């Protein structure tokens, strides 16, 4: 393992976060979550638990009704939004929502060019991000000409190009065939992103998912969000092994899958 041990820097701090939609439906009831820099955490929870609502708070798409969110020490509020959105790379569930530009290259360039990058610097950022996900050969294709797995990888590249500190992935394994699934896992496991000083570092990964084996494969730590609060937080293997907890929150392991029989990845 060449990975340095995760240091004690905090990438993400959510405290007492509550939110109600304008139509009155309350989705979050006081969420507390701290994620250390460089770690990989799975956010598990049944449908309607508030996962997407929580994710939309992490880069200020939604403003908290109560509580605070801070990213790398910056509070997610008006003046810091621009920097926060650069640091938090949000990968949407449907790559078609994320890839809105006419070609792959322009789409990957969208984030950095919004941040003011131009010319040679922009081109090399785009090329590097595409190389990281193995899509450099498809730079000039239209997104709808790619397979679903390729589109998902390009979607990851679109946020990598902004050199994020945190990657937030919404259901990254949904609709992927097994090969595409393990390709993506390999990419996420080996990913390095330069920080402000230009050092290559592991990005913090927060992965929202229903795919419990995938969570176990990639994330040493998991949190379970249910009914708008965090109900469990711990090692993924331990949480998945707690059959009662899983059942209580509509998280069911695939038939024949025993989390204790799998060696959890180092990390």
């Amino acid at each position, binding site marked *: 393992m060449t990975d340095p041990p995760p240091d004690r820097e905090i990438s993400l701090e959510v405290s007492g976060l509550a939110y109600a939609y304008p139509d009155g439906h309350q989705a979050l009831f006081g969420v507390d979550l701290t994620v250390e820099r460089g770690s990989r955490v799975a956010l598990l929870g049944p449908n309607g638990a508030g996962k997407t609502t929580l994710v939309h708070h992490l880069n*200020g*798409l*939604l*403003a908290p009704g109560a509580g605070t969110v801070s990213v790398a020490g910056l509070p997610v509020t*008006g003046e810091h*939004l*621009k920097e926060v959105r650069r640091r938090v790379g949000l990968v949407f569930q449907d790559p078609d929502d994320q890839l*809105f530009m006419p070609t792959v290259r322009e789409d990957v360039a969208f984030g950095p060019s919004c941040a003011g990058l131009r010319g040679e610097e922009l081109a090399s950022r785009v090329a590097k991000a595409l190389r990281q996900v193995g899509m450099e050969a498809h730079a000039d294709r239209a997104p709808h000409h790619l397979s679903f797995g390729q589109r998902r990888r390009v979607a990851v590249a679109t946020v990598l190009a902004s050199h994020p500190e945190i990657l937030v992935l919404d259901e990254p394994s949904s609709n992927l065939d097994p090969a595409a699934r393990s390709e993506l896992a390999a990419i996420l496991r080996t990913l390095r992103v330069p920080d402000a000083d230009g050092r290559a570092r592991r990005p913090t990964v927060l992965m929202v998912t229903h795919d419990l084996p995938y969570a176990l494969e990639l994330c040493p730590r998991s949190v379970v969000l249910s009914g708008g609060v965090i109900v469990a937080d711990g090692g993924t293997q331990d949480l998945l092994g707690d059959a009662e907890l899983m059942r209580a929150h509509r998280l069911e392991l695939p038939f024949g899958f025993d989390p204790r029989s799998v060696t959890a990845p180092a990390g």
Partner: protein
Amino acid sequence: MHVPDGFIDAPVSLAAGAVAAAAVAVSLRGARRELGHGRQQAPGADRTAPLAGLVAAFLFAVQMLNFPVAAGTSGHLLGGALAAVLVGPYTGVLCVTVVLLLQAFLFADGGLTALGVNILTMAVVTVVVAYAVFHLLQRVLPRGRASVTGGAFAAALVSVPAAAVAFTGIYALGGTADVPLGRVFAAMTGVHVLIGLGEAAITAATVGAVLAVRPDLVHAAQRLDSPLELRTSPAPDEAAAPRKPVRRLWAAGLLLALVLGGGVSFYASAEPDGLEKVAADNGIDAQEKAHATEGSPLADYAVTGIAGARLSGGLAGVVGVGATLAVGTGAFLAVRRSRAAGRAADERS
């Protein structure tokens, strides 16, 4: 539907282009207001481009949806009135304009010099008239979903012939072929009322379908969600009650359109060519539509318009639309009164 080059002379085409450009400029400003109010108050919260782009794509796609009429023929939605009711007049004008623009540049559908004419009639007039009719009826009619769908019906019904009237006006100014306005154009009004009727039925049903699931997305119905419903009688009665006015509304509209269409067709029977032409158009349309949904909306894009249909209206058209408006409004007023009376009776009992 799309006017080609050479139909309208150069000066009038350019003038129409200037007017259309001004209307689009106004819409660009207005659309930001219409679509701007998102949940997210953040820098760059301007949602106009993605939302209007998707609505334009929707209009484009929905024109691919086949509505079978009878005996193998089918028609499709034009979408101007639908856009006006669903996303508001400014966004509606923008979206239809973008569709027309791309059709002209990418598919050679509609002449480049006639772009102004096409935008003016199909985007501006259709959407604005539809919205005006809709807005007017919403003021007159009681609040409720039935009024929204009914209003959408009337708006679409009027907007199609209105576009024809607008085109006739332009044609009178700059038409290159010397056709006696009154005669042939009157013959075409029958077609137009029929097209408008189909458009109205589909528009109203589509608006109804959206209302049922996401009423907040119907721009023109946004006032619906302000007051909460207070129930004084059991729910089933309430649910059943609004259906009646809708049916009556539609029946009235149908009857009206049939009378109009029938009358004009009778008038037109002295002019067989006009009717033959219509038949030919419908045939073309049906053939083209059959495979349009199979692949990409753009790949199979071909002749979709009903050309001569645009060429209706004329004096008889004006009269027809005026009558439609008058009778339509009368029908709505009657329904409203009877409904109010019914409610009063309920309260007494």
